[in-house]
Each structure stands twice: as structure tokens, then as C-alpha cells.
């Protein structure tokens, strides 16, 4: 397993949309990170039950989605499209159903390619059902087996990019968020999460290698995006959500250490940090994912993206057309601006990146840490750390320091009721033990042990 000890991108000016030091070439010749930003379309079913009896209707929906969306992509002369299929729980539980949909999508993509020369590539993202057991069984059992089967068969069928929103540690992290307990957050992400990622992504790399496809990446969706959603609803401080985001990079990075090569999955707002560390291209989402969630990073998220996504939208009819098609149109136009700037050269790209960054960075802590210089500072703190725990602590510490400095020198506005949280978070971080070993014993003594099984994370009692 690779361990990153330095950054692939050291200069903030090189951290820009559309260009990654290690681009990825797909079978149909899309070069992700090679100078063109591609739209990445996501979608889901409207309100309906998924079971054997509704599968014909389910198939009809995905058929309609892919046909309608790609037709519009041809009309708009998109340079290529990434299609992401995130399964719903019953489709991972019944891998045949998931595979059915994979094949429907691939057929639609093949038709657009053969008839209209539209390039596209499929990202398959089986949903992680392992926490349907409580406490979750992470390393075996039917949920694990079904999930691996779906990965394997999808890769065999032509799903070229493998992703997942894995959930190791989430059983502890939800409560940690509500209590704003930074220690438990780091335990969930950098101890439980990182160990689960190692186990999981080692298996996924094996599958990808077997079929000649790519491990793309994971996301801290269930962790840092939950924090973001709670912060948007003013349930927890935005400052805390920003720090969680920084810590989450440590966990998501493990996929790349195990062999993933990007594009990192769209909803990982920690992806810019991973791009700086690994040099691999990254999917991102922002304003044009408002269909799926509100976000304080609508523009700045695009500043360093290599594909640009809408996260998810139901297949329902808007006035203009089916919602996935409408959203693909919006993504294509967003990408056209970036691709124009890329074609005009680095000055133009950086000028546009500056607009994207400056339009958001002063208004929210989560946006602030995505400014290129701040990304590099957090990335550096991570690669200079010796283990995941140290990296999590360093990322958190760097983030809160950047935020405090930004606020002090007027670069960052903060709601008055958040101010007390600068100290609370900082003290929380500084009170943590020095060694990972001490930290793990401390946490094992504190957390609700009924919620998780240490052996599922290869954690022995100390």
C-alpha cells in the first residue's frame, strides 16, 4: 500500500479545474483531468418501491433517463459525459437487479457512441448496505457478499469506474456530529473509517484489476456531507462542519493508497485536498447539485474539479423535460465555461478560478478551506503526519487555525453565535492524546460500544 508523503501539486496555481497531474484515459478516449471538464450525471427513481414486481417499471425509468439525457448531450455537443449509477439498497441486495440497470445504461451509452459518436463512461456506485445489520458487520455476511458480487459483475459488464460511499465508522460518527465531539469524529473517520477503507478498497482494487477497469474513489458523504447538511439547517456550527471536512480527507485518501486512480466521487468536497496529494482527477459538485442538497460551496467546488456533477435528481418531469435531462443541460453549460477558459490558456483558467473561489470563500468556513492555498495547507498537514490519527488531528488543527486567521484578518465572515466555537473546537483537538494507541483506548472507553464491533475493524481491546 502506497503512503503519500508529499504533494503531487505544490503550487496553488497548478490546482485548477480540468487539469490533473495524472489524468485518466477511458476506453472511449475521454481524458479526465487532461484539459477538459466533463459533466457527470447522476439520477435516481421517483417515489416508488423497488421490488421484483416493480422492476419492469424501474428498468423503464433508467431506460428513459439514459436515452433522454444522452440525446440532449448530443444536441449540446458535449465533449463527453460521465454517467454515474448509484444503486438503491434493494439493487445491491439483489445484485441481478443492479446489474440489469448497469446493462441498460451501458446499452444507451453504446448507442449514443455508435450512432452519434458521443463519448461516455459509466461509474458504478453500489450502495453500501453493511449497516443494515446493527451493529454493522463490515467484513463478511450477505451484505458484504452481495456488494462484492455487484461490483464484480458490473465491472465485467463494462462499468469502467468503480466507486462507493462506504460507511465504516458512520455508526459512531452520527452521534459525534450531534455532540460536536471532535475526538469521536476523528475516531470514526481516521480509526474505524480508515481501517474499513483499507479492507474494502483492497478488495475493490482486486476486482478492478481482474476486469481491467478503474477504482475511482470513495467519499465521506455519510460523514462530512451529513455535517454540511446539519450546518445548513443550523443544527451544528459551520466551523465544525469545515473541520470535519478537513478530517474526512484522511479517510477518503485511503482509497488512493489502495489503488484508486480517480476521478474521486462527486460528493466528496474533500476531493480537492486529495487531488493536491495524489495528482488524480476529481469529480466535484456544487450549485448544480442543489437538486440533491443545499451547499455553501456552490461555485468554489468547481474551482478544482475534473468532472462536474449534479449529485442526484429523481426521474420526474420538470416543465422543460425530465429532471435528469434538465440537469445534464445545466452541467454541460457550466462545463462549457470552464472548457472555454481552459482552451484560452492558463491565464484565463486562473482568472475564472479566482472568480469561482472569491465568490464563495469569504461567506462560509466550509468554502473558505476550499480556497487553493488552504487546500494545500491541509493537504500538507496530512502528508507530513505519521499515521491516520496524527493526520486527522493535523488536518483538524490546520483547518481551525486557517479559519481563525481568516476570520481575524477579515477574509471570512462568521455568524456571531459561531464565534465561541473557535475555542471549543481548538481545545477539543488539543486535548486529544499524542499517540494513536492512547487515543484508541481513550475512545474505546468512551463511545457507545453497543453500536459497533471492534473486530469488524480489526481493533483488539487494549
Amino acid at each position, binding site marked *: 500500500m502506497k503512503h503519500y508523503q508529499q504533494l503531487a501539486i505544490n503550487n496553488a496555481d497548478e490546482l485548477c479545474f480540468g487539469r490533473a497531474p495524472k489524468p485518466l484515459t477511458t476506453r472511449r478516449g475521454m481524458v479526465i483531468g487532461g484539459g477538459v471538464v466533463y459533466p457527470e450525471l447522476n439520477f*435516481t*427513481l*421517483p*417515489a*416508488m*418501491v*423497488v421490488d421484483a414486481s416493480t422492476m419492469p417499471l424501474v428498468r423503464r425509468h433508467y431506460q428513459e433517463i439514459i436515452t433522454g439525457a444522452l440525446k440532449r448531450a448530443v444536441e449540446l455537443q458535449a465533449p463527453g459525459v460521465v454517467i454515474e449509477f448509484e444503486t*438503491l*439498497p*434493494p439493487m445491491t441486495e439483489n445484485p441481478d437487479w443492479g446489474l440489469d440497470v448497469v446493462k441498460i445504461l451501458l446499452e444507451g451509452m453504446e448507442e449514443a457512441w455508435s450512432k452519434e459518436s458521443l463519448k461516455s463512461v459509466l461509474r458504478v456506485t453500489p450502495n453500501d448496505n453493511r*449497516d*443494515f445489520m*446493527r451493529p454493522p458487520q463490515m467484513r463478511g455476511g450477505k451484505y458484504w457478499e452481495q456488494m462484492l458480487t455487484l461490483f464484480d459483475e458490473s465491472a465485467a459488464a463494462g462499468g469502467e469506474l468503480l466507486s462507493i460511499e462506504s460507511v465504516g465508522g458512520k455508526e459512531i460518527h*452520527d452521534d459525534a*456530529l*450531534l*455532540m*460536536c465531539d471532535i475526538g469521536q469524529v476523528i475516531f470514526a473517520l481516521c480509526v474505524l473509517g480508515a481501517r474499513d477503507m483499507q479492507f474494502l478498497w483492497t478488495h475493490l482494487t482486486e476486482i478492478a484489476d481482474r476486469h481491467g477497469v478503474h477504482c475511482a474513489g470513495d467519499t465521506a458523504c455519510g460523514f462530512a456531507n*451529513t455535517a454540511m447538511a*446539519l450546518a445548513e*439547517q*443550523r*443544527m*451544528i*456550527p459551520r466551523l465544525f462542519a469545515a473541520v470535519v471536512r478537513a478530517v474526512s480527507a484522511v479517510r477518503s485518501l485511503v482509497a488512493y493508497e489502495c489503488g484508486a486512480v480517480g476521478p474521486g466521487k462527486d460528493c466528496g468536497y474533500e476531493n480537492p485536498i486529495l487531488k493536491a496529494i495524489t495528482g488524480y482527477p476529481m469529480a466535484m459538485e456544487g450549485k448544480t447539485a442543489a437538486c440533491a442538497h443545499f451547499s455553501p460551496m456552490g461555485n468554489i467546488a468547481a474551482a478544482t474539479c475534473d468532472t462536474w456533477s449534479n449529485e442526484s435528481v*429523481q426521474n420526474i418531469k420538470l416543465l422543460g423535460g425530465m429532471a435528469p435531462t434538465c440537469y445534464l443541460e445545466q452541467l454541460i453549460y457550466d462545463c462549457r465555461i470552464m472548457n472555454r477558459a481552459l482552451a484560452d490558456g492558463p491565464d484565463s483558467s486562473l482568472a475564472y478560478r479566482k472568480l469561482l473561489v472569491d465568490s464563495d470563500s469569504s461567506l462560509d468556513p466550509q468554502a473558505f478551506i476550499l480556497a487553493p492555498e488552504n487546500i494545500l495547507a491541509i493537504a500538507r498537514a496530512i502528508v507530513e503526519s505519521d499515521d491516520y490519527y496524527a493526520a486527522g488531528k493535523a488536518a483538524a488543527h490546520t483547518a481551525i487555525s486557517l479559519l481563525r486567521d481568516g476570520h481575524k484578518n477579515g477574509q471570512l465572515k462568521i455568524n456571531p*453565535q459561531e464565534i465561541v466555537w473557535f475555542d471549543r473546537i481548538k481545545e477539543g483537538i488539543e486535548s486529544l492524546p499524542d499517540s494513536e494507541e492512547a487515543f484508541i483506548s481513550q475512545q474505546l472507553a468512551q463511545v457507545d460500544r453497543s453500536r459497533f464491533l471492534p473486530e469488524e475493524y480489526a481493533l483488539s481491546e487494549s
Partner: protein
Amino acid sequence: MSFLLSLEEAVKQGNRNSAVSSVEDALSAKLPPQDILDALVKGMDDVGRRFKANAIFVPEVLIAARAMKESMAILEPVLVAAGIQPEYTAVIGTVTGDLHDIGKNLVGMMWRGANFKVIDLGTNVPPEKFAEAVVTHKPDIVGLSALLTTTMPNMKITVEAIRKTSDSRVKIVLGGAPVTQDYADEIGADGYASDAASAVDLVRKLIAS
């Protein structure tokens, strides 16, 4: 400051030691248990109000809730002896097929803060289990949560299962990302709350009506 005022203040501050000792002081002073309970609820009401006004965040509410909970642990036997019941009983859970926890937990937190007795059935709860709980606990309210478009339809089935029990008095309320007031109306639920903060007011309004 009187014991009751200091109890109220301790809950507002989330100071559990001070809350517990204030309850003990108040009990020793033979203050009426209903008054002690009212002080606790008043303290939590204030916390809820500040939370709704975005002056504080969930962790602060949880700390106050913990102070209240520990105080209640002492007070409850006295209340039971005096025949004083919680204002309302609520059953809550995420419907079958859905693992999302946080929204439900936040609503549970708000309801407990308002001194409702809350029975949390957890996530991925089948309709039968909701119906059973209605029979067993005779709640005033059932809260259903769903976060996926593909599990939202299970709310309908669950509402039907609950309505089939003999308890026709129970109010069913819904919450979760794909849910709307229209959907609640459509499946015959009694109410819908778009966020945890408004879930208490919703229930009080429904039961009053």
C-alpha cells in the same frame, strides 16, 4: 434564588450537576413535584426557543437534555407516586428499508425536551412493528421518518397498518427529505414537519385541534 429558579437555570446552562442537586433540594424542601417538573420543562422550553431562533446549536440542546434527563431520573418516581404522567407519549422510527437516523433522533430530542415520553423504535422498522407499538404504548403521536424516494412509499403502508389498530385517536406525523405536506395529506397522515425544530409545535397544534 429559589430551588426552582436555580433548577430552571441549570437546565438552560446544561449544568447537570447543578440540575440534579436543585431537584434534590426542591424535593427535600417538599416542593410540589408538578412545580419541579414545570421548572425543568420551562428551562428546556427556553433552550428550545433559543435553538429555534438559531442562537444555539444541537450540542447545546443535547447537554441541556442530558441535565433534564438526569433530573428526571430522580424526579420520576415521585411523579409516578403523585400520579403525574408525561404530557404526551410518542412513538418514533424510520420506516422499513431506510437506515437514516439523524432526523428522527433530532425530533426525538425535541420531543423529549418538551417532556414527551418517547419510544424510539430505531431505523428500518416494519409497519407491523409500528402497529404493535401503538397497541402496546397507546401513544398520542407516531412519528415516521424516511429519507429515500424509494422508502417513502413505505410510509403509506405504515400509516395503513397503524390505522387498522383499534387506536383511532393517534396522530401520525411525517418528516424526511422527500416528504411534503401534499404527500402527508395524500396518505392520510395528520401532519408534516419540515424540520426538527418545528416538530414540537406541530404536535401540540395537532393534539389541541
